[in-house]
């Protein structure tokens, strides 16, 4: 039963992600939090695979799991002692955060439940790499070369900026 396999995988991923996410925001050690975050990110990549966005999944793993998490780890290591003790805030604020989050969640879920999405056109085939490449590198409607270039420059700028900021005086 194909569908049940899918559902099973999805359920597993979902549970993993939620559990990891919760752990990430509650654990008191940064290294652990980062590790839990890593699980969530991997789970997300899994979701992309399930949606047949293989390329996206790959990027997710490479950039997020491979790049960003490493950055976090470095930061945590660099800061060292300061990272150990993550204290939670005052009880009032804790409750306020909890309440807002839950009510937000409730509203969002309510909205999702009561919204009818447009016709399901889900195709279960992978997007060819060529399509992605063409769209990324050409101009015109639904093509993204400009964005791509802008993003490249942004990344460059960020790199330079990060170096400038973090550099020792």
């Amino acid at each position, binding site marked *: 039963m194909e569908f049940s396999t899918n559902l099973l995988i999805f359920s597993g991923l979902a549970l993993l992600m939620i559990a990891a996410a919760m752990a*990430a925001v509650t654990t008191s050690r940064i290294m652990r939090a980062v590790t839990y975050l890593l699980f969530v990110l991997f789970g997300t990549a899994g979701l992309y695979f399930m949606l047949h966005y293989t390329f996206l999944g790959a990027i997710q793993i490479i950039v997020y799991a491979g790049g960003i998490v490493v950055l976090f780890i470095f930061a945590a290591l660099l800061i060292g002692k300061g990272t150990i003790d993550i204290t939670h805030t005052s009880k009032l604020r804790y409750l306020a955060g909890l309440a807002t989050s839950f009510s937000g969640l409730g509203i969002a879920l309510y909205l999702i439940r009561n919204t009818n999405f447009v016709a399901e056109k889900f195709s279960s085939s992978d997007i060819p790499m060529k399509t992605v490449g063409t769209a990324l590198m050409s101009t015109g409607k639904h093509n993204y070369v400009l964005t*791509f270039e802008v993003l490249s420059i942004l990344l460059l700028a960020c790199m330079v900026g990060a170096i400038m900021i973090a550099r020792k005086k």
Partner: protein
Amino acid sequence: MIIPAEYYLILATVLFFIGVFGFFTRRNLISLLISTELMLNAVDINFAVFNAYCHPEHLEGFFFTMFGIGITAAETGVAIAIIINVFRNAKSIHIKNLRELKY
């Protein structure tokens, strides 16, 4: 069976609000950043899901997610640079100790 889009959306929402909760309650700059990542991630999922379920003929959500990931990377880089710098100056990254910038 195709998993209904709602399932994905519900998952993303839950993740998002976990991130929100973290953002509200944590007191450490890196933890805050982690919470932010959670939220961004949830949003990315949504983009992909909507793309896949509603407009598969175009790849807008796909690319949005892609660029989002890219920007997240950039943002994290800068943020971590700042955090390190702050730590270097203030010897702490607990936000309750970081009040000098206000004045």
